[in-house]
């Protein structure tokens, strides 16, 4: 503890008002007394699952509470002043001047009606730190430093004219432009593809090093935070679990929870050899969306065997979700056929028989919107039973309870509404709904990407377990290679609408690689200090998101 600290947080307590359905609104405490110091030029990583309070702490360092959140106790010292005691006008000078903020979704945070340059220099000019000319000069320097193409002119573009990864770097430039003493990065790479993430990460890391600014780096991904931070604070339910240097947290974690985070994705899955008859054969599928002039899928061929898992991997825009839409019949293909359980499927789902619909189920990425918020869990799971098998009354209830047991929830969940479930529980209910139809195959579209790592792990284990019991095949769409390693039997790597590499897991994941697969595989963050520099040094091809 020294007085040189840029940010000094002491016993920070944060409360919020919650509105549970059917109850009176009441106050709860979401952060219970957090303390830490941040020296100039250092980076502190705040890590934890959703609800751990990490973003709330980040915003509290700007004396801000989002929504109904209120700072109820403790001290936050920035450059030797307790900002929680400051007047409103002083806090205005602090925000965007001494402390700046980089949010998760740059696309949602930029004003689409104004150019990037206007927005990047706004805070610096407003705070009187630079004249407009100087600020623009500084912005161009930062654009160059962050590796943006054509740094002299990119500022004249509008936010939609640059890619997601570039926009995230523009936002970093925005945050660094007023020469702040502290930058709060709130999940800056979470919304990006792995191959793009790595470039943004490198750019952020270099910019922090070169400008000597202190930073709070908030993320749920321990491997990412290990690359950029000096210290790490692990948070859970608003409490500090462990706080120490990166090296210690990664290599010799003390607490059980941290150990679980470090060793996540420890699922061992022996791949199965292909059997005779595939349950699903996709043959020469070419597809495009209505009203567009280019094909999103080119001549795609894959097979899925009964009781096995085919993982379709690729970054956004690779056509992997489109493939799912073609198989389900939401998007009839231009060419090609789909064979399912020995039959040829009609291209449009409206014309498919009820049997076809029943045997091919789907689980969505966002469990929130995949369930009708006005139906209870019992209704959601019970409807397929009633619809496909005509079960009613006590028999239906019996089967719902069986399904709830299979997904490791319980009878008590039957009368709950989706809003009363956690993210992982919601996804479990969606799995039960799919299983209720007794399908031969389930399409899992990014089912774990919206979940915290430990919760996602639980879902994957459940899916593998259910596969053994129900003998159901999964078509698993994901961008996360760690997930693929955990559950796949066969893998199809997709790139720009084509299948780049296809085969059994062991073949696909062993060298020699083609350039794209190599890029994809090497971009998955590893929990190793110095990994980022190694990868950047060895890259063969640029990521598409740049």
């Amino acid at each position, binding site marked *: 503890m020294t007085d040189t600290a840029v940010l000094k947080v002491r016993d920070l307590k944060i409360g919020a008002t919650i509105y549970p359905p059917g109850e009176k609104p009441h106050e709860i405490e979401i952060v219970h007394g957090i303390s830490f110091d941040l020296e100039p030029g250092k980076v502190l990583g705040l890590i934890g699952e959703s609800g751990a309070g990490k973003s709330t702490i980040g915003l509290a360092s700007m004396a801000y509470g989002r929504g109904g959140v209120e700072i109820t106790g403790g001290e936050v010292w920035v450059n030797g002043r307790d900002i929680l005691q400051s007047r409103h006008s002083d806090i205005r000078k602090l925000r965007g001047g001494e402390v700046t903020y980089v949010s998760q979704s740059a696309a949602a945070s930029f004003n689409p009606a104004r150019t990037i340059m206007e927005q990047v220099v706004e805070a610096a000019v407003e705070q009187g730190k630079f004249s407009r000319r100087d600020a623009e000069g500084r912005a161009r320097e930062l654009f160059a430093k962050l590796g943006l193409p054509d740094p002299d002119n990119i500022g004249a573009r509008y936010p939609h004219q640059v890619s997601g990864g570039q926009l995230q770097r523009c936002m970093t430039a925005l945050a660094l432009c007023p020469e702040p003493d502290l930058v709060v990065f709130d999940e800056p790479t979470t919304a990006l593809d792995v191959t793009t993430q790595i470039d943004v990460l490198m750019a952020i890391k270099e910019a922090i090093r070169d400008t000597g600014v202190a930073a709070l780096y908030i993320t749920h991904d321990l491997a990412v935070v290990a690359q950029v931070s000096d210290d790490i604070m692990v948070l859970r339910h608003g409490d500090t679990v462990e706080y120490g240097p990166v090296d210690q947290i990664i290599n010799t974690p003390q607490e059980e929870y941290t150990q679980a985070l470090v060793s996540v994705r420890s699922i061992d899955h022996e791949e199965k050899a292909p059997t005779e008859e595939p349950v699903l054969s996709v043959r020469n599928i070419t597809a495009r969306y209505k009203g567009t002039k280019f094909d999103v899928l080119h001549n795609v061929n894959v097979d899925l065997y009964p009781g096995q898992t085919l993982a379709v991997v690729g970054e956004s825009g690779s056509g992997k979700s489109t493939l799912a839409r073609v198989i389900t019949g939401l998007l009839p293909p231009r060419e090609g056929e789909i064979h399912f359980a020995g039959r040829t499927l009609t291209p449009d789902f409206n014309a498919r028989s009820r049997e076809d*619909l029943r045997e091919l189920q789907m689980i969505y990425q966002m469990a929130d*919107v995949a369930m009708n918020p006005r139906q209870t869990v019992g209704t959601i799971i019970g409807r397929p039973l009633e619809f496909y098998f005509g079960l009613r009354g006590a028999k239906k209830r019996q089967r719902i309870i069986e399904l709830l047991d299979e997904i490791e929830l319980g009878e008590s969940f039957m009368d709950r509404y989706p809003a009363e479930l956690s993210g992982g529980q919601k996804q479990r209910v969606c799995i039960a709904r799919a299983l209720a139809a007794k399908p031969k195959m389930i399409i899992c579209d990014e089912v774990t990407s919206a979940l915290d790592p430990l919760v996602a792990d639980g879902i994957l284990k459940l899916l593998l377990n259910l596969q053994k019991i129900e003998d159901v095949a999964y078509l698993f769409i994901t961008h996360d290679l760690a997930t693929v390693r955990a559950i796949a039997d066969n893998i199809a790597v997709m790139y720009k609408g084509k299948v780049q590499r296809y085969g059994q897991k062991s073949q696909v994941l062993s060298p020699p690689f083609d350039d794209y697969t190599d890029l994809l595989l090497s971009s998955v963050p590893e929990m190793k200090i110095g990994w980022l520099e190694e990868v950047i040094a060895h890259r063969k091809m640029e990521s598409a998101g740049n």
Partner: protein
Amino acid sequence: MKNIPLSALVGLFFTALYFLGALFAPLLAPYGMAEVVGDVWEPSSAEFWLGTDNIGRDLLSRMIYGGRTTIFIATVATIISFTTGAVVGIFAAVAGGWIDQVLSRFVDLIMSIPTLIFALVVLSVTPVTVPMLILVMGLLDSTRVFRLARAVAVDIEVMDFVEAARLRGERTAWIIFREILPNALSPLVAEMGLRFIFMVLFVSTLSFLGLGVQPPEADWGGIVKENKDGIVYGIPAALLPAFAIATLAISVNLVADWVLNRTTSLKGGRG
């Protein structure tokens, strides 16, 4: 239901008062509706609380009976307008394609003609009876509800749970009534409060113009029409229905506001 704000309580109280008054009109009114009991335009007295009207009928009794007619017509017309508007609107959103186009353009066509003029034209060629009045008002107003219901349903229709229901093979009726309607209900109910008031104004306007409720039946618009000449002599009788309409409008809207607030807070913060 414990946390009803004061404004909503006030709204609920007065709304209930008006509806109860309408329901029990024969018990509450001191005199008969069409009974001539005094002189023309008598001032208010212990005998006639609000005075008498242009031919000597008790104004309070006429206001109570008038409220009964007005509120009855407005309520039934609102129900008709909502059931047709909401069901057809959601159907258009779910069906999409040319069905949606035909329905939406037809509604645009109807809406392009001023409602009052349309209603006057229709009512001048048909016999003016209460059921006819209700039907014309309800159907004309359902175009507005159609627009709202379709707009809300289009947003809900693209959500994954609707797609899941389609992929399950559900029929359109299930998708409309079980998947979309329960989620569209809150904005529709809030809108219902506003539309009800428009209905009250609409039927009053029609009566004022002589094409609504026919004498000797009383209704608020009719009372204004009968007593409008009194204003010249400083007789406030014509203003009483205006006051009644205004207070009913405000109290119903207080309730509607509360319903709207409740629905927005259901979504929670960052959820």
